[in-house]
């Protein structure tokens, strides 16, 4: 056994592709080795900007020789049977053995040398590597992410000979592009990492990431700054450097007038710098960049150069900012009729009209409380205005944020500016749903409008297709509804949206009002069902992600007919809490037992009792009936008052009577009257429980 080393040396691999490439390399290698029958131990993969590396421990010297015997047709069987057997085994007739009038195929495989299997594996990895984008170069036909220059393939200390598009494998590679430009020879997996380290290449990305993470924080601290941690930047910089050296640079205080997000984004996206804060928590006029060399002047020129580049970028950003501040958002909003929102849904200006109307309705109808309706309408009308500013043109990801800053700078009330800033929120997992009333109204209206309008037009997400991110919008709307305990009927929203949609969109005006109204209300019903199903599905996803057991979710959702999201969730939460109590667990056991008996007896509905229905009533039977008499109305009343914990408590009161009932009472009594009565009682118990939640869906 020996350790295997593979290094694929190329021109610079994009940083964002490296993590996936490492995983693909490990997986692909393991698969091909398994298929080739060559055993190996642990696999490690590494990447630097110029190399993709795999080390497999304890690779066997050869594959195991094998002998396999397959029984075929009888010698006197029809010709087709023999032909089929030959096809299956890939042998010819004279290679078969005949024993006792039966054909046998003996397939012997010799053990193959490890180098042979490895060479094939390398060839296939390079030929079929799943790069997101690959290219050709020079006059060859080989494809790789960027031109491939070298292959180091060594098993132990021996080179594994393989040739890829004119590149012969060997033991030679290159060190750091500038510190050690010449060729270096490695002895194998055993010294590869240390040899390269001596040539200014840190092979292990995790080590480079740690150097950047800690080094950047330290460099900032040494300069009296606090680094804003950014793990994405750590990984990206590690993918851009073989010898990372964090350096601190400064920029002019004057630029701090530009919105903080713009500065941070410019540094992060355009320059891959870490931002820093000062002791007061505000942004500091400093940054940390990561160089790829230990510069001969200690990094002074690099830090200065980077500072100059940043200054030019910030000057540009400031230019846009100053231009944008001069134009009132209200005038910018007028230009929105020139931007198509969607060919079937009109312009952004049309959307703004709808959102303004819906947001105002949310407040007027008392769904969103505590918001000034005029502020809501104002915020909704200005919310999209920043789309036509120079700033958002340069930094599209700052839509909303820029609008918020501009609104504040132009003297809009704080609530309006905040609503403009936050109306896209929440944008994803982990993003907080807004709670400020004006923001809630605008943010919810914006999302509901998009969802409803697209559904009305029949543009509904299917499978992996969701080009307008309606699923994300739905999750956002649900998060806002849940976070703020909003009670609204989706049906009302859709009716309003369809009404306003018809009025606001050209070419949609009904010719005959009556006919159109009938058609529309029919259409509304079918669209509403689709929309409710869609939202329900999203809600399940959202609850699963929030850690609620999926069977609990199912148990509540199976009841159907509940379209108030807040109420649904209250029930889910109460149920989750209940099944985790001893009462809940035991009640569930009893429920399952009852349900099983009913199922076995095919007792789907109560049957009318014959005579003697009150004869031979056991005390436990009577006690259960009495408990149900008490629990049923209590549970119903609690549900009506949305007191789901109360409803669960009512169920809990059934636990002792049902348990003793099962202990003491024989359901399948010889007397059919008793049997029927007891089965009816169990049915009643099951149905009482099911009114609170469908317990059959809960896993024990």
């Amino acid at each position, binding site marked *: 056994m020996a350790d295997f080393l593979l290094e694929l040396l190329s021109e610079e691999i994009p940083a*964002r592709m490296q993590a996936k490439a490492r995983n693909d390399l490990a997986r692909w290698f393991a698969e091909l080795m398994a298929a080739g029958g060559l055993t190996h131990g642990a696999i490690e993969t590494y990447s630097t900007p110029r190399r993709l590396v795999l080390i497999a421990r304890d690779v066997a010297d050869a594959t195991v020789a094998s002998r396999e015997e397959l029984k075929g047709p009888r010698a006197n069987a029809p010709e087709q049977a023999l032909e089929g057997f030959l096809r299956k085994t890939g042998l010819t007739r004279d290679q078969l053995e005949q024993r006792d009038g039966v054909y046998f195929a003996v397939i012997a495989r010799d053990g193959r040398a490890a180098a042979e299997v490895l060479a094939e594996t390398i060839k296939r990895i390079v030929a079929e590597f799943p790069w997101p984008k690959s290219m*050709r170069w020079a006059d060859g036909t080989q494809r790789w992410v960027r031109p491939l220059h070298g292959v180091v393939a060594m098993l132990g200390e021996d080179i594994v000979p393989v040739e890829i598009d004119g590149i012969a494998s060997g033991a030679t590679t290159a060190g750091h592009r500038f510190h050690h430009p010449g060729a270096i020879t490695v002895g194998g997996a055993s010294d590869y990492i240390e040899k390269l380290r001596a040539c200014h290449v840190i092979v292990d990305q995790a080590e480079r990431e740690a150097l950047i993470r800690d080094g950047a924080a330290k460099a900032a601290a040494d300069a009296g700054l606090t680094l804003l941690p950014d793990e994405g930047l750590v990984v990206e910089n590690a993918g851009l450097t073989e010898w990372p050296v964090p350096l601190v640079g400064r920029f002019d205080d004057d630029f701090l007038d530009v919105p903080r997000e713009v500065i941070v984004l410019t540094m992060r996206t355009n320059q891959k710098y870490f931002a820093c804060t000062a002791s007061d928590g505000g942004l500091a006029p400093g940054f940390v960049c990561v160089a790829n060399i230990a510069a001969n002047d200690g990094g002074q020129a690099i830090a200065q150069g980077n500072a100059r580049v940043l200054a030019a970028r910030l000057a540009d950003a400031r230019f846009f900012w100053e231009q944008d501040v001069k134009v009132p958002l209200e005038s910018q909003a007028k230009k929105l009729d020139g931007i198509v929102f969607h060919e079937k849904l009109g312009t952004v200006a049309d959307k703004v009209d709808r959102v303004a109307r819906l947001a105002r309705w949310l407040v007027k109808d008392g769904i969103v409380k505590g918001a000034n309706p005029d502020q809501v309408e104002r915020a909704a009308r200005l919310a999209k205005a920043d789309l036509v500013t120079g700033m958002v043109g340069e930094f599209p990801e700052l839509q909303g944020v820029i609008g918020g800053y501009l609104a504040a700078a132009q003297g809009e009330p704080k609530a309006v500016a905040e609503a403009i800033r936050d109306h896209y929120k929440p944008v994803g997992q982990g993003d907080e749903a807004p709670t400020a009333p004006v923001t809630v109204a605008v943010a919810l209206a914006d999302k509901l409008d998009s969802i409803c309008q697209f559904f009305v037009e029949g543009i509904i997400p299917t499978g992996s297709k969701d080009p307008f991110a309606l699923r994300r919008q739905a999750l956002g709307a649900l998060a806002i509804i849940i976070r703020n305990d909003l009670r609204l009927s989706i049906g009302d929203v859709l009716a309003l949206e369809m009404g306003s949609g018809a009025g606001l969109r050209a070419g949609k005006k009904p010719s005959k009002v009556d006919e159109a109204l009938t058609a529309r209300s029919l259409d509304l019903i079918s669209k509403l069902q689709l929309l409710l199903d869609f939202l329900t599905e999203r809600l399940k996803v959202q609850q699963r992600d929030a850690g609620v057991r999926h069977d609990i979710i199912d148990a509540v959702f199976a009841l159907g007919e509940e379209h108030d999201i807040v109420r649904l969730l209250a029930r889910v939460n109460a149920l989750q809490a209940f099944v985790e109590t001893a009462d809940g667990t035991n009640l569930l056991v009893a429920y399952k037992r009852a349900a099983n008996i009913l199922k076995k007896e095919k007792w789907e509905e109560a049957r009318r009792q014959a005579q003697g229905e009150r004869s031979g009533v056991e005390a436990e039977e009577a006690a259960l009936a009495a408990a149900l008499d008490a629990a049923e109305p209590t549970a119903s009343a609690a549900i009506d008052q949305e007191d789901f914990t109360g409803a669960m408590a009512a169920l809990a009161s059934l636990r002792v009577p049902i348990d003793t009932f099962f202990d003491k009472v024989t359901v399948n009594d010889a007397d059919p009257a008793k049997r029927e009565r007891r089965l009816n009682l169990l049915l009643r118990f099951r149905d009482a429980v099911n009114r609170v939640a469908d317990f059959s869906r809960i896993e024990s």
Partner: protein
Amino acid sequence: MSLSFQDLILTLQQYWGGHGCVLLQPYDMEMGAGTFHPATVLRALGPDPWKCAYVQPCRRPTDGRYGENPNRLGAYYQFQVVLKPSPDDLQDLYLGSLTAIGIDPLKHDIRFVEDDWESPTLGAWGLGWEVWCDGMEVTQFTYFQQVGGFECKPVTGELTYGLERLAMYIQGVDNVFDLRFNDAGVTYGDVFRENEVEMSAYNFEVADTEALFDLFKKAAAECERCLAAKLPIPAYEQAIKASHVFNTLQARGVISVAERQAYIGRVRDLAKAACAAWLERAGG
């Protein structure tokens, strides 16, 4: 003393001329990037080897800032190098050119940062990087994969140096107009500031949009006449002309978002047809 703007150009020419490149002069037409030069676009197609280098003045009407922005210009220079087939040591050759203009790679941080290149108007794309020097993009480095919708076989390696930026870097100047153009006291601003002011006014305010729309139509029609006459080079020139007219119309703000795609598509069709005609004649 660091290189003046003109010495920077001379040094790059000297360097690439020394590596076997034909040194061309700028193409005498308005274009948005050095790539549009027929010595790049057309020569990237077909089987014949080709090495050349040239300075190309580029016009980007929408980037004009009336000479008031220290970093943005409506017209500037690119130094373009194309090598076909792309040599195996292209990166090293390129780094050699940086050393030639005085950039020490052990003092300055040179980086190859992913940047895939695509030109929708040329139906062209390639993979490569923007080359950073201390965080400043100084060169676009691309391996062409397709031009005019056709596979590039062999592959052309293209280097596009942004000359003003590179010079600002080398000279340590923060305002492009302060660049030393030569070593006799003439600045970039002396030569070009008035140009920037007037061209910005023309492109943003004065240019006759009616006439430009008409010009676009005429260039497209002329391109098609040339194609019919099996003259790929003049046909391609008309495609370049249409492309520039489109850029000016954009700067005047008279092309809507929806129309924009249609115009780009029209230019691409012309460029592709010219490329097809060129390939047909070159027997590629």
